[in-house]
């Protein structure tokens, strides 16, 4: 009934180990790690944190959306749970976020099992709609049961306790500490994605994506593997949520459980290219700065790129301010329309095109294919 993917499986299921890729990856991470030594502008570091956050979200969604092909548009559920559990444990129970976030991830995994058992029975638009509905139910419930969640008032972060890391005291004040934590978490997210992709799990996930029925007839336990993918994805999305709550210092149901959170995560991956490790990273690198500039063009002035009275800032402020999602909209339309084949290949080609650029290749074997 529908044109299925024609690209044979092995070509897109990279195995093995690319030394060059690993070196590039290490170099990029190292460069990012020493970056704050040279650039201290808070706005730049702020952007860096948002970028890492987007990378974590993208990598997390990629596991279930990219590899297993289950287009959840309800990831705000896990993001919000991560944010709320971390925040509430800190604010109510005085549990430091680096412990609280484990509980948050566990909670998200539990939730994902419930959601998975409901939604994975459905396919296509029905699955998408169900995933949205679940996230909306959680958002509305968080708004309503305000004795527990404080409803629309949300949570305002008091203070993050001082972290004691090997005798080193780390104060979470300013952007710097968040920059490093964000970078670390992003590296972990990328690494986990790599491991998933290169393990047996990755094969099963992709088999499910290519053809559920065929995968089933090969003896792959569909619901089990879909749930595994979703659990991994949920855990890391919750991690991103916990990190977000600590960084932004304010959460309420609409900002962490809202539909646009879910949509943003998906579009980030789609625009970057799904099913690869580089894709979500590219998506983040393209989208985060673009939408941030639209949101707050004055930042460019602060960084010294533009002068305060420059026409660009005035133009953006007057005509484009706060429409940062416009970029997502335009790009996703362009990506879906203007690709050679217009079927699932849309995404594949985009990803492959990105993947072929040598400087962007972390350890995937995309180049080999």
């Amino acid at each position, binding site marked *: 009934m529908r044109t299925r993917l024609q690209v044979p499986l092995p070509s897109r299921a990279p195995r093995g180990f690319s030394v060059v890729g690993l070196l590039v990856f290490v170099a990029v991470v190292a460069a990012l790690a020493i970056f704050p030594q040279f650039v201290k502008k808070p706005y730049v570091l702020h952007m860096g944190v948002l970028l890492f956050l987007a990378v974590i979200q993208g990598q997390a969604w990629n596991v279930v959306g990219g590899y297993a092909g289950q287009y959840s548009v309800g990831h705000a559920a896990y993001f919000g749970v991560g944010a709320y559990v971390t925040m509430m444990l800190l604010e109510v129970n005085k549990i430091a976020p680096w412990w609280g976030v484990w509980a948050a991830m566990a909670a998200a995994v539990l939730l994902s099992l419930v959601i998975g058992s409901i939604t994975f029975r459905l396919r296509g638009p029905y699955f998408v709609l169900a995933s949205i509905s679940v996230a909306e139910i959680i958002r509305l419930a968080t708004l309503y049961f305000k004795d527990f969640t404080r409803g*629309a*008032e949300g949570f305002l972060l008091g203070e993050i306790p001082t972290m004691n890391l090997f005798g080193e005291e780390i104060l979470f004040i300013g952007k710097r500490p968040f920059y490093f934590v964000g970078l670390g978490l992003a590296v972990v997210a990328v690494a986990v994605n790599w491991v998933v992709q290169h393990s047996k799990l990755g094969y099963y996930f992709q088999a499910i994506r290519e053809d559920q029925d065929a995968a089933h007839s090969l003896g792959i336990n569909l619901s089990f593997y879909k749930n595994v993918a979703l659990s991994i994805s949920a855990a890391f999305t919750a991690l991103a949520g916990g990190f977000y709550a600590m960084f932004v210092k304010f959460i*309420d149901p609409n900002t962490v459980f809202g539909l646009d959170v879910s949509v943003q995560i998906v579009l980030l991956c789609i625009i970057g290219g799904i099913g690869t490790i580089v894709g979500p990273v590219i998506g983040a690198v393209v989208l985060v700065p673009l939408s941030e500039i639209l949101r707050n063009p004055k930042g460019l002035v602060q960084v010294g790129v533009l002068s305060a009275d420059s026409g660009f800032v005035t133009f953006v402020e007057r005509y484009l301010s706060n429409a940062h999602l416009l970029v997502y909209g335009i790009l996703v339309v362009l990506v879906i329309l203007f690709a050679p084949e217009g079927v699932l290949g849309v995404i594949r080609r985009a990803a492959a095109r990105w993947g072929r650029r040598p400087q962007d290749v972390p350890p995937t074997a995309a180049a080999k294919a």
Partner: protein
Amino acid sequence: MTKKLAMAVAALALALPGTGSAQVKIGFINSITGPEAPIGENLTNGVDMAVEDLKKQGVNVALVKQDDTGKPQVAMSAMEQLATGDEVAAVVGPYTSATANAVAKLAQQYKVPQVVPAAAKEEITKQGYDWVFRLNAPAHQYAQSLIDAALAFGKPKSIAFIYESTDFGASVASAGKDYAQKKGLKMVADEAYQKGAPDYRSTLTKIKAQNPDLVFMVSYVADAILLMRQSREVGLKPQAFLGGGAGFDTAQFEGEKDISNLVYSVTQWTPESSKAATAFADRYKAKYGKKPTYHAACAYAAMMIVGETAAKNGGDRKKIRDALANGSWTGIMGKVDFETYEGFTNQNKLVMPVIQYQGGKSETVYPKEAAQKKAVYPFPGWK
């Protein structure tokens, strides 16, 4: 003529820094766009007028405006930018309870004096923050003034609450519930609604079935109008509709004569409260073509105080804070004095008058000393 003079003075001030008159950089965070923008506009107008008046006094304010779109996280990043990027001497705003409360935390952290002009949430000045000042009266006074007024006019026995579940709505409503209980009113309905889906007909029908003597509503502007429209539709007819400020005290609401008539609202300020207030109202009307709301007056007064204080102290944040804490001012809001009392820190004491819309015009009806017209009580029913 005066304008020319003011400009000359301003030019002089620029040319001779350190001669008493000076340039100060002040941040102003407000809901310029977003759902609260119709009210935010009043604050912007008030602040703009204050900046002009300060100029006439020889204080040149470089105003850095930031839009918080009504969202706390946006307000917080705006505050960070003002505190660290723009290096302002002090901050006026933001408007809503949620945003003002979020910014207060940062004001304390970055040690930037903040004057909250019109946000009601109790906690804002109850957290011991010595960098945060509030000009307007907090939430419990909204509820007390309204309920006291109703009890003075008649003998209501029961009360229903309907409010938006935001910081502002929840604070005023919960203060109202406490006070109603104290006064022996029976609470027959307690309905919080979510913004964004404005069909309150079923909720109002439910309230109508309880037949409450008082209906207490708290909401921002769009919902205030729709709540009253739908109350009229379903024929809700209590002895009095009590509107908790905000959306119920705006020109838009006043202009909706069909539904605003005989509704009570509580306010921070009325143009008739003093000569200075009347003069301000006249100038405002001449400039913007409409009556100032309390938001405009509060914002104006806050900006005047901050501008003067900042100029006197050469933009030094710590000195400004001390001067704010110790000084007192008399202007369109009457006497302003940031005091520490009953758990509040740096809170201005203000008596909130109750107004009633009579034929599309707001009239002060309570307290007795300030009343200009007799209140119409009970509500005679819809036309």
